[in-house]
Structures are given as structure tokens and as C-alpha cells.
């Protein structure tokens, strides 16, 4: 049964590879790239929120840290965003530990609110910090032609498509590896009952930080990817509270605490919101957010364990 399931995913991956060649429409490709990015974000969140029971509503902070780090390193030092991406991930881990360590006793709602507050602080600081462009934001100098070094491709969306796909699958792969290991067992243990976990020898504080680090890293990598995709970042686009919320909603909608749930969530919700936005005219009209909110509400009532609960019996 396990084998058959894997085959099924291999087929899906192959389909994903040929998809943009068959549907060579920029908007469709854009939606797919967003699916990958949000899939990656939701899967990262899954590690903390889905498995370890730490409901972070401040992931935008790490996304923004990733976006700003790689962009700044490129603008200030000419460092390729590929390395900037890793650097962003590491800075995000540092930030995650800085906030996670003192939060090590917070649970449930208290943890959620602390993460919201943290993300707002980062947002406010970046909005007022001229070195990072303050409210105007940053846009790196455009490379004269498509460039792997500069991580800029403007003649086609295809490179972004494949990079995005790769990053998402990499995230899924790593998270799956972690979850199947001793560390993963420990993370699930703290998600289910910290007290018992501690009595069985699990160092709660340490594993919380491991969990936060993994999530922060991949969230920041997604942030760098986004920065290279749009080539313009500012606090409202990469540090927004709504982004944090979206990440949780997608993971939860698909089914948090399962490996593929968050990806399903992105696959369904992201096109929904992208098309709603396109059809009902821009961000301003509100219909997209409304549909989003409605779907989430209905789902948390009737399918609290997410879309994947349609497939999993138990």
C-alpha cells in the first residue's frame, strides 16, 4: 500500500514537470508558482503547528527576514541570492531561537499571540529602518539579461516554476525525513502532551527550538525565492500579518499534521484566491478574502482535520 502511494506521488511530480510546457500561459504559471511557494510555507508551518503543537501566527516575520536578507546581501555586497537564500534561512533560525527561547513556556493561545506580536514588531522596525528601505522597500538592480547568478529571469516564468517546484518538494522531503526520525517522534510527542513527553526524557525546550528552526529556515528560503520572483519587497508585501494567517489557514485547510495535507491546502486554496483576485479586480474588492474566510470557516466546522481527512479513514 505504501509503495502504491509513492508511485501515485511520482506520477503527480511528473505531471507537475510537464504542466507548464502544456499550459504555457503566464498567469497559469504564476498561479502554479504561488502554489509552490505557499505549499512550502504551509509545509514549514506544519512542522511547528501541525506536529509540535506550536500555533505560530507570525511566520511572515521569517518570510520577510529571508526576503530582506538575500536582497540586501545582493544589493550591498553583490552576493548571489542563492547563497543569500541560505544566509536568510540561517538569520531566520537565529531570530526563531531568539523569540522561541523565551517563549519556551508559552502554550496554545499565549504562544499564538506572542508570535503575532513578534511579527508586528519586526514589521514596524522594518517599516522605519532606512537601511532596509523603510516603508519604500527594496528593489535590487535588474540584471541586463536572465541570470542564474543574480537569480533573475524575466523572459520566462519557467525557471521560477521549476525552482519553486524543487524547493517545495525539497521541503516536503526534509520534513518527511525529520518526521519519520526520532526527532519527529519527539516533535509529535510535544505536540500531543508536553508533560508526558518530559517525563519520558524529551527535552521540551530543545525540541521546541529544533522545530522552530526547521520551520523558520524553510519559511525564510521561501521569502528569498519570493523576493527574486517579484524583485520588489516592502513590509506590506513580505511582513504582512495576513500572510501569517494565510499560511496557517492553508496548512489547516489541507490537513496539518500530515505530510501532504499542507500541499493539498495550497493546491486548492491558492488558485482559489489567485483567481478570485483576478476575477474580482485586484486586492481592493475584498471578495477574495471573503471567499477565503468563508471556506475556512466552513471547513473548520465540518472538516476540522482538513481536506486530507477525506482520504484518511480513522
Amino acid at each position, binding site marked *: 500500500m505504501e509503495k502504491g502511494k509513492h508511485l501515485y506521488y511520482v506520477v503527480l511530480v511528473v505531471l507537475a514537470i510537464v504542466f507548464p510546457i502544456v499550459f504555457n500561459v503566464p498567469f497559469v504559471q504564476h498561479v502554479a508558482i504561488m502554489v509552490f511557494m505557499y505549499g512550502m510555507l504551509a509545509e514549514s508551518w506544519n512542522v511547528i503547528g501541525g506536529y509540535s503543537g506550536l500555533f505560530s501566527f507570525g511566520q511572515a516575520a521569517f518570510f520577510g527576514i529571508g526576503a530582506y536578507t538575500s536582497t540586501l546581501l545582493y544589493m550591498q555586497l553583490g552576493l548571489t541570492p542563492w547563497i543569500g537564500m541560505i544566509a536568510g534561512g540561517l538569520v531566520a533560525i537565529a531570530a526563531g531561537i531568539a523569540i522561541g527561547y523565551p517563549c519556551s513556556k508559552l502554550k496554545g493561545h499565549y504562544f499564538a499571540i506572542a508570535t503575532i506580536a513578534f511579527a508586528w514588531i519586526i514589521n514596524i522596525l522594518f517599516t522605519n529602518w532606512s537601511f532596509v528601505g523603510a516603508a519604500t522597500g527594496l528593489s535590487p538592480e535588474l540584471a541586463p539579461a536572465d541570470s542564474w547568478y543574480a537569480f533573475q529571469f524575466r523572459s520566462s516564468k519557467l525557471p521560477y516554476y521549476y525552482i519553486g517546484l524543487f524547493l517545495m518538494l525539497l521541503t516536503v522531503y526534509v520534513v518527511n525525513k525529520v518526521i*519519520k*526520525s*526520532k526527532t519527529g*517522534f*519527539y516533535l*509529535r*510527542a510535544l505536540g*500531543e*502532551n508536553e*508533560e*508526558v*513527553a*518530559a*517525563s*519520558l*526524557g*524529551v*527535552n*521540551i525546550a530543545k525540541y521546541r527550538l529544533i522545530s522552530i528552526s526547521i520551520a523558520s529556515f524553510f519559511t525564510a528560503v521561501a521569502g528569498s525565492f519570493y523576493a527574486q520572483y517579484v524583485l520588489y519587497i516592502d513590509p506590506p508585501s513580505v511582513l504582512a500579518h495576513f500572510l501569517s494567517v494565510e499560511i496557517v489557514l492553508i496548512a489547516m485547510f489541507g490537513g496539518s*499534521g500530515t505530510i501532504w495535507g499542507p500541499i493539498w491546502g495550497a493546491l486548492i486554496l491558492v488558485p482559489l484566491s489567485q483567481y478570485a483576485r483576478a476575477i474580482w479586480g485586484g486586492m481592493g474588492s475584498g471578495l477574495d478574502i471573503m471567499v477565503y474566510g468563508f471556506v475556512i470557516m466552513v471547513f473548520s466546522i465540518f472538516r476540522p482535520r482538513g481536506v486530507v481527512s477525506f482520504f484518511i479513514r*480513522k
Partner: protein
Amino acid sequence: MSELLKVEGLTKRFGGLVANDDISFTVNKGEIIGLIGPNGAGKTTLFNCITGFHKPTSGKVFFDGRDITALPPHRVSKIGIARTFQITQVFPKMTALENVMIGAFAMTNSVSEAKDMAAETLSFVGLGKKMDVSGESLPPPEQRRLEIAMALSTNPSLLMLDEAMAGLNAVEIDESLEILRKLNKKGITLIIVEHVMRAVMNICKRIIVLENGRKIFDGEKEKAVNDPAVIKAYLGDVYHAEG
């Protein structure tokens, strides 16, 4: 007999309430100790202080000659003290096997080894057929036994059980007692908090009685039944219950 656990002048206050008042005792290797006392006497609090879940207000705890006062719970587990909780606590969504694996990971980093060890421990407590049932779907008596298996899987030298027989019927109590006896034969020292007197009297040689946070008796069980302070504590309790 060599000394395994030593508690020295342990006091725990919650605000004005003194839950543990200057408690001292020692436990030797291989003993089975019954810790009893009326509701609110401070038994669970004492467990929590020994296992690092509470920080004692004053006093010291030694294990194997080492000062372990206020070590965090996971460290206490690592040095060989395992415990269960008064209100049954298991990982609800994990299977019984996975529940026990968490403990077994104290011994190994390998998932497949942990799996084998956990399976063995589950069979030992008689849950061999329930490995794939989730923690929350086990009936309460089996959850109690799962808890014991979880604690055991960390390979403790001291096992502390907080009312592990509450809510069990007579047959189940006998089964549990059998398990505990086997464990003791393997060399595991036991401290059991229990309101089921039959169980305590059956398995323990030595009894420690707490009342209002104080230790009022420490000695052979035969002497406890005739001790005036113990009788008063328990009769007082009965009066309260009936009045």
C-alpha cells in the same frame, strides 16, 4: 541494602499552602514502598518535586548519591527515575506502540530499534495485541497499563506510580500487581501512591504515610495499621467524607 533515593527536609509551598512540610526519607534498592495518605496530603506534590515537575521550596533530593534537586523532568528521566501521572496521560493520537517508542528513544536513536523495544515492553504489560490502537481509543484500564509500559521503556531503576490502580476492577488490580512484582524481581525499585489499600497491603513491605504535607509514619506495614497517628488521619478522613 544500598540507598537509591534520599529525600532530605523537602518542603513545597504554594502561596500560603504547605503541600510538603519538611519530608525526609530514604529508599533502598529493590524496595517496594507504599506512599499513602488522605486526599490532599501531598503525595502527588512529593512525586512532582522528586521528578522535577515542581521546584521544591527547600530541601534536597539525592538519587544514587547524586544531588538531583530541581533537575528538569527530562534529566530526571535520563538518570533512571520514571513516573506515571495520577490522571492518566498518554499521547492521544499516537498508537500504543508509538506511545511507548517515545520512552524507548531514551535508549536508542534508531527508529526500528525503538519499535522493537516498545513492542517487547507492550507485550510485557499485556498490550501486545493493542499496538496499533491510538492512545485515546484504549479503554481507561488499558491506558493505565500503557502508561506503565511508557515509563518502563525508559529503562528506569526507580519507578514511581501515582494511583496506577484507580478505577481498576479486582481482576485488573491483580494483573497489575503481578506486573509490578515481576518488575521488582528484575531489580526495579518501586514507589506506589495508592488509595486501593488492598493493593498496598499486598505488595509493599514498607509504608510511608503523609498527612497535611507531613510525614506521620514510616515503617513496616504491619505497624502502620496499629499506629495511632495513622488511624487518626484515616478515621478523620472518613469522618470528613461522611460528614
